């Protein structure tokens, strides 16, 4: 048996990393991620992990060190938030294009400026085109489960891509919850040993990483990357099934919460999904056919699964905790609206931008969204395509 403990999101991530026991961890402190690496460094100091810890001077160097370590055949990890991820930007793209299975918890925080340390998804959504797989976590348990699965997904021969596991800054990272922790041996066995098929250390089979790639082959290499992240969808599902065997908890690309026969559906990612679930339960008791589609994998985006789940809804609202400036709606909205385009029957979809810079979202706001969906379902009219929740205007 494993154990049931009370941990914050950051402590949970550190605990998962202790069990993963990466060969290398390179990191730089940033609020609200700091406690992950801080807790992990205690494991290093106590000798309970065999990780080589590199206390680098910036996130740009953290990700660069991970690239060097991963290319040398090591299992490499880091963790960051917001501006730290932004500073890594250049290297994030390179990690993905080198096909290095680096796994990174990202504690979601609003990007500067103005400077802010609280949660929104502007950081991870900004990195959505970097080639990383993205798994969003609703609560501490999911952080743990996602991180362990992420190792398998990243290192799968069909994939070989870096994975970002997100958790909402402060809301989850600093809140204590009940978490089920598996036995160490079970995790060790589940993740297996990392064998990089093209290790720099293998001098008998010499390779060059990241050489100049111009108009002759760059395009083909990008096509390979596209194929790899497409394949990741199946791998995420397969790993989710295998994880159920050791944990009893199953994971898909997304979670359908009371979607069966649901007329009014909200789509959300991260901790807000938990709040929506509470509202769905209330509304169902009142006889309202409400449901939730929770996004777990945002990259690769599960187009078919999403359209399948939403095609019979009478009205759908997508909650975005970030802005795509100048676009008509937030990043999740744009994906979902596009995914529904192929459906014969037009499903009315609206978008709500919420929670920027850590602005709280509560039951009342979510109820108001369902109320609006009810109106849309009845009138078949969308008055406002993109709205805002909890904003002073």
């Amino acid at each position: 048996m494993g154990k049931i403990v009370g941990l914050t999101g950051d402590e949970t991530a550190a605990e998962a990393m202790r069990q993963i026991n990466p060969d290398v961890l390179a990191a730089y402190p940033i609020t609200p991620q700091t406690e992950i690496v801080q807790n992990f460094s205690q494991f290093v100091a106590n000798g309970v992990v065999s990780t080589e810890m590199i206390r680098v001077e910036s996130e740009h160097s953290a990700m660069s060190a991970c690239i060097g370590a991963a290319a040398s055949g090591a299992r490499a990890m880091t963790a960051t938030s917001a501006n730290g991820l932004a500073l890594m930007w250049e290297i994030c793209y390179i990690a993905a294009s080198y096909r290095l299975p680096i796994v990174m918890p990202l504690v979601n925080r609003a990007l500067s400026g103005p400077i802010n340390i609280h949660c929104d998804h502007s950081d991870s959504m900004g990195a959505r085109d970097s080639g990383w797989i993205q798994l969003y976590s609703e609560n501490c348990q999911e952080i743990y489960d996602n991180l362990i699965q992420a190792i398998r997904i990243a290192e799968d021969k069909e994939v070989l891509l870096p994975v970002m596991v997100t958790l909402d800054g402060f809301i989850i990272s600093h809140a204590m919850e009940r978490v089920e922790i598996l036995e160490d041996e079970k995790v060790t066995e589940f993740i297996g040993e990392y064998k990089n098929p093209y290790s720099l250390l293998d001098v008998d089979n010499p390779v060059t990483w990241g050489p100049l790639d111009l108009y002759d082959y760059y395009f083909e290499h990008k096509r390979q990357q596209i194929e790899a992240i497409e394949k990741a969808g199946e791998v995420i599902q397969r790993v989710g099934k295998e994880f159920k065997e050791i944990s009893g908890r199953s994971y898909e690309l997304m979670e359908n919460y009371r979607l069966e026969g649901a007329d009014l559906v909200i789509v959300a990612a991260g901790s807000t999904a938990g709040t929506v679930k509470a509202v769905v339960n209330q509304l169902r008791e009142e006889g309202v056919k409400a449901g939730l589609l929770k996004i777990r994998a945002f990259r690769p985006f599960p187009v078919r699964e999403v359209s399948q789940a939403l095609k019979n809804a009478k009205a759908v609202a997508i909650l975005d905790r970030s802005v795509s400036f100048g676009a008509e709606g937030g990043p999740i909205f744009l994906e979902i609206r596009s995914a529904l385009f192929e459906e014969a029957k037009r499903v009315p979809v609206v978008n709500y931008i919420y929670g920027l810079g850590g602005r709280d979202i509560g039951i009342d706001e979510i109820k108001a969204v369902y109320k609006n969906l009810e109106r849309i379902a009845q009138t078949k009219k969308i008055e406002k395509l993109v709205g805002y929740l909890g904003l002073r205007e």
Partner: protein
Amino acid sequence: MRIGFKRPESMRNSPTHYCPGCGHGIVHRLICEIVDELRIREKTIGICPVGCSVIAYDYFYFDMVEVAHGRAPAVATGIKRVQTEKVVFTYQGDGDLASIGTAEIVHAASRGEPFSVIFINNATYGMTGGQMAPTTLLGQKTTTTPFGRDAKEAGYPLKVCELLSSLPGVAYLERIAVNNPVNIRKTKKAIKKSFHLQIEKNRFSLVEILSPCPTCWRLSPLESLKWLEENMIPYYSLEVVKDSVPLP
């Protein structure tokens, strides 16, 4: 009745967010006194870092810019190149200047950008809760080096003044501390000299100020002064590291 001691005009009347025994408040006040004495409040522009002094603009009663972690010298360069007549200074901690922003400070110094740098060294990342910084002393316990910094795995403490001293673009480097009244006066003199060099000679200079962090060092304010004297000063000696433009 004559009032002999009052808040400098350049200092806003706002409650401090700094911990008891922290050195930031002292240095803030010194800067404000100098700005008042030089009568440059209407032409001073300060640049806030990321770190404990991230909201220093709440205390300075002149124009301030808040910038990304470590980038203050680059932003200051942009400001000073456009507003050449203004007095520009960056206010940066060691987690900012000596870590994520090492490239910026080295290259601003190398180019000899004519602004002043006030560099607060407390040998830790204070804002994030006391992790190891590049300036952390060997053997110093932090939350990421719980048994003390070990050179084998975490390298040696970075001496910023010495690092910059070989650059011809640098006019003046002094390391001082705010551990006692004598040194506080010397700190004021050093900052004033740095401002003079900018205003009169159009030169780059940096004043490194050793400053206590009782919270992250897990010491009382008094103990932390003692710790600074017994541990920091022997390694980060208080001296004028470079002075190529002695003032008359």
